[in-house]
């Protein structure tokens, strides 16, 4: 299960950050951390990127990056 698989309006909790290097640090600096709850708000009209809410603000990232963000399995 990863972030790219969520549909608009769906939520998930981050289990693992797959990205490496600058990208990973960048995401972490912006509050995308293990244990954080993330909501997918929208998908761009052309299918990519996506808009998410994290730490009470809106962030957009590409699906390729979202695929590296693994989510906890829903209980």
């Amino acid at each position, binding site marked *: 299960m990863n972030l790219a698989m969520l549909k608009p309006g769906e939520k998930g909790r981050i289990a693992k950050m797959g990205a490496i290097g600058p990208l990973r640090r*960048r995401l972490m600096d*912006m509050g995308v951390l293990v244990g954080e709850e993330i909501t997918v708000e929208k998908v*761009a*009209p052309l299918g990519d990127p996506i808009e998410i809410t994290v730490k*009470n603000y809106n*962030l*957009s*990232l590409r699906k390729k990056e979202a695929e590296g963000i693994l989510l906890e399995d829903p209980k």
Partner: protein
Amino acid sequence: MTAPTAARSFPVVETAVLRVAVAGNPNSGKSTLINSLAGTRLHVGNWPGVTVEKKEAALEHRGQRIALIDLPGTYSLSPYTEEEIIARDFLVHDRPDIIVDVVDATNLERNLYLTLQLLELGIPVIVALNIYDEAEKKGYKIDVKAMEAALGVTVVPTVATRKTGMNDLLEAVTGAIAKGSRSLPRSQSYGEDIEAAVKMLTAGIVDRHPALVERYPRRWLALKLMEGDRRVLAEANISGVDSLMKDAVGHLREAHGEDLESLMADARYSLAAGLTREVLQRPSVRKTEMTEKIDRVVLNRFLGIPIFFAAMWFVFKMTFDLSAPFADWLDGAINGPLTRWIEASTNLLHGPDWLVSLMTKGVIAGVGSVLVFVPVIFAMMFFITFLEGSGYMARAAFVMDRAMHSMGLHGKSFIPMILGFGCNVPAQSGTVLWSLYVMGIVLAVLMGILFKRTLFRGESPMFIMELPPYRMPSGRSLAIHTWEKGKHFLIKAGTYILAVSVLVWFLLNLPWGVENKKDSYLGKVGSAIAPVFAPLGFGNWEASSSLIAGVIAKEIVVGTMGEIYVRETEKKPEGPAPTFFEDLREIGTSFASAGREAFTNVISTVGITSLKAEEKEEEATLRSVVAKSFTPLSAYAFMAFVLLYMPCVVAAAAFKHEFGTWKWFGVAFVYQTILAWSVAFIVYQGGKLFGIGG
């Protein structure tokens, strides 16, 4: 960077200039705050060696001289992005006396993450709790006293857009020096494990690397070593497997894995979250906010793209409406009176003919084409500033990223593309060319995908971008930013344009005393590349020479063709030249009518009337010139090529400005030239196939 002035104590002498660095997240209203503090005393330049903007201002408050230095907006002080490296190098090596940390009150937790990193530096910090009005409107209750107590720093609520709290902020800044070292922030605890490691590392560094302690704040150094910060490790010449590191962080690695960078991010964020819980009370029922409502429409699956194009069309139309009358006015003033004056004064000084020609056809023509861009650039910068300040620019990048990305470009690339389009604005107003432009866009996407698959298969820049809430930019910051951007841009573009104009003049007039333009260097180059354009129907040296000259600005293609075709014998019949004062009066009255025209243009656009297909003078010239050696079909192919081929010097400057390297301009250059060739080819050969013109 300059030599470190580290370990400097606070200035006791009153007259010493207090160096205040302003740090904060992007979208925290930092630049508005700087504008409010500095007003017209703002000086905008670049950080050495990079294209990141550096703003500075000299102020005085209660007799205390203050030098404000704006740091790039950052989310963190990591060693990865250019902005972050600039900010932290300045903080660590140049050690300002005080840091003003601009915190977005509506987004406390993420902003405090940076605040905590600033507190690690051992420099007094003052928090400007900005956008305070919006936080109140959202029903947020922030306990400022509790925040001060928890952070150990002064917190000043501010609303930079309305200049609220600016005086309190300056009071806090000057007050902090009076307190001396007592104004140093309390160091925050990241938890027992980490603090134990920091303690060991600090002791170890003092013991074994005394030179480092001179250069860096101790706690910061220890934390960075722990994070495995590659820049600090390299500068300090310490390896991650150093025995000191092993001793100090070994148990942390055992407990938390090798990745101590994310351990630290976690530690800072949990502290920031804790602080936020302590000081911030959110209303229990969350209202649907304006931003959400707007985004439902603006980012809608079906409406998002049409809205983007509508917004861009509106920007172009308004830019053109506002600037065209003034551009025409400038054009008239330069080509008429100014040229005459220069000619007359050069003749008066008995200057040789070639000097008159260089001045009027090289320098004045070059300066003229820069000046004609002035109204266009300022109008365009105004709208771009508005789109950026309001928050729509981020949405536009969001909507367009997929298309741009498929061309190997970043979502934000449409900004220089818009500016590139600005190259065409003075040269084309006719609706005929819109058809070509639309065709160009469609082909651009298709070819971009092809390019991405074949030539540029590398990584495209990362796209992790905040979508800030919509905000109305204040008139004041709109004005300042428009002015700064426009000025900066024109100085850069102007330099290139002038240089290229003079170069083209020389190419057209060398070897010395060349009679036939075909034998000039430009003519020779034109002849050499002419066969490339043969399949497009304009494989003559005149056309290809003009295209080379067109790198300055597209309407120069017309001018150069005019100069090539119109031989010396064809002198325009002239009446008696108007006097200097008649000229001046004429310039004045035509300026006034340009103002009126711009105004009515804007009114008519707002009233949504259809595009006026105006027959412009240049187009008429182009048409008459072109008729001499072109068929209607090859002329159309030629116009298509002119419209689509490489972005002009202005666009080149825009690309450099936006991305800091020439690389993306190179990509666009190759790409657009091939695109233009293909479109012209299709137009010409396709047309012939259908038996049009030929």
